[in-house]
């Protein structure tokens, strides 16, 4: 689906992404984990067209998409959400969703004045679709609420809903779970699994919550210091020495190990 080859993104002397190569298989929910500052979000931003890579290539379904602007990627079915949820705060939740699909009839000045009927029909269809999406996400009651008034978790759901307004092929979720309570996190997780199963979305998920990753993701890719450290099933990753060291540092690793052994001996 997406292959990243030897990607570098440097900010001055700092190598945020330092030669990462990853492969995201079609139909998978791929997890991307790593300690803070590992370069996960930068990698996301390069793939999503926010940053130009210093070097390297991003290929989607055999097509080179390196450095395309975000709205061009959007039209190819590559969508992303933000670590800190973004929304059009002065618009209602329904309007937020209705904004998403591109190439609408009402987008040109000419049609705005001279093609009113087709715009009305299109609007009605979009509103219907938006309501279906809100239904799917179990937040129908918020349709007419201003998006700026939503809670952090509800905004994350809205972000997910945005990807459902168009036929997304692959969705990059940047820390959907950050600052979200358990119950809502489960709702989000369920929605992701259903979208993956029922609509065939491919997901790439950045997340720190290991339970969440373990429940959803296979495979899991671990990044540290701008490089890919390990890749495999969630279970195997959690046993991986190098991963534990990257997360906890050597001293803590030995302590954890010692505790585990002590626990085994007792």
């Amino acid at each position: 689906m997406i292959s990243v080859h030897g990607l570098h993104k440097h900010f001055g002397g700092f190598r945020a992404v330092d030669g990462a190569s990853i492969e995201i298989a079609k139909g998978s929910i791929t997890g991307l984990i790593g300690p803070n500052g590992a370069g996960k979000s930068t990698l996301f931003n390069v793939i999503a067209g926010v940053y130009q890579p210093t070097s390297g290539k991003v290929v989607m379904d055999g097509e080179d998409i390196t450095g395309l602007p975000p709205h061009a990627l959007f039209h190819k079915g590559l969508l992303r959400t933000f670590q800190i949820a973004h929304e059009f705060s002065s618009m209602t939740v329904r309007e937020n969703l209705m904004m998403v699909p591109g190439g609408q009839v009402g987008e040109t000045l000419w049609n705005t004045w001279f093609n009113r009927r087709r715009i009305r029909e299109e609007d009605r269809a979009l509103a219907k679709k938006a309501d279906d999406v809100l239904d799917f996400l179990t937040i129908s009651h918020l349709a007419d609420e201003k998006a700026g008034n939503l809670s952090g978790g509800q905004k994350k759901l809205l972000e997910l809903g945005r990807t459902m307004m168009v036929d997304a092929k692959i969705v990059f979720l940047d820390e959907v779970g950050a600052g979200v309570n358990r119950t809502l996190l489960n709702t989000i997780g369920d929605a992701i699994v259903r979208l993956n199963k029922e609509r065939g979305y491919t997901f790439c998920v950045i997340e720190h919550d290991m339970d969440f990753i373990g429940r959803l993701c296979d495979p899991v890719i671990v990044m540290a210091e701008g490089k890919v450290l390990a890749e495999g099933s969630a279970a195997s990753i959690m046993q991986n020495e190098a991963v534990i060291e990257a997360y906890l540092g050597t001293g803590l690793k030995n302590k954890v190990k010692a505790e585990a052994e002590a626990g085994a001996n007792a």
Partner: protein
Amino acid sequence: MDLLNALVTLLNFVVIPAASYGAQLALGALGVTLIYGILRFSNFAHGDTMAFGTAMVILFTWWLQGMGVHLGPLPTALLALPFGIAVTAALVLFTDRAVYRFYRRQKAAPVILVIVSMGVMFIMNGVTRFIIGVEEIRFEDGERFVITAGEFKKMTGLAEGLAFRSTQAITIVTAIIVVAALFWFLNRTRTGKSMRAFSDNEDLALLSGINPERVVAVTWIIAAGLATIAGTLYGLDKAFKAFNYFQLLLPIFASAIVGGLGSPLGAIAGGFLVAFSEVGFTYAWKKVATYVLPDSLAPDSLLQLMSTDYKFAVSFAILIIVLLFKPTGLFQGKSV
């Protein structure tokens, strides 16, 4: 009777002139605020866009008059407006392609764009003067008055007259129509909503199906339309002189900032606030006071707070006061 006379004087010298001036400022400030909200910089070239647009309208007015076309009691300039807007829109779109787009792609800081817009301002300045000259030009035709002071006195038998010039009436009516159309556009149409979305959250708008170049182009077209309309109304009401539009930049920016940059409602409120203060502070209140106060208290002086030469100081003062107490403006725009 004295109270009525005072009221009529007030209407005649303060309320009506300030209302039409306020409407002109509001339309100008709306253009500035839209550019700020969507393109994220203060467009110093807006005053000269107004001058250029008005110059175009004047040329088309002369052409129409030459063809023998008239609008009866209304000024021919109204008929020339769409042509003027079209040419001005073409010019600003060209400017965007030739100048601003480069800096947008570089993700230049707003302050750089402001300086760039000053460069554009000087060029537009020159182009306008080159085309139409630096002289004062009057281009109104049709009926001069809705009601003259003499007619009003005869009608009511009051000592004070109330003159209502047709250009003032046209200004206020046009402003109401334009503002209503603009708000309908921004709130009800897909294009307008895209613009608001872009203003709300640019990152998200870029990652949705919104085509940023189209939003930018539409914004420029609307700004050109607003500038041309505001400039033409000002020119009809007073007279056209390229330099006057350059000077208008200050009260227009004061209006937009006082209302809250990026907030269309604020721009309108700001326009009227600035206009009423400017007229109020520079008007000699002696006549009104003489009518209202008992004879023993009748003032000897003119009761004029400051000479009209200093009217631009009023905009400055309002600007500073509002920014001190409410840095984001009265209507919570983006912080400056």
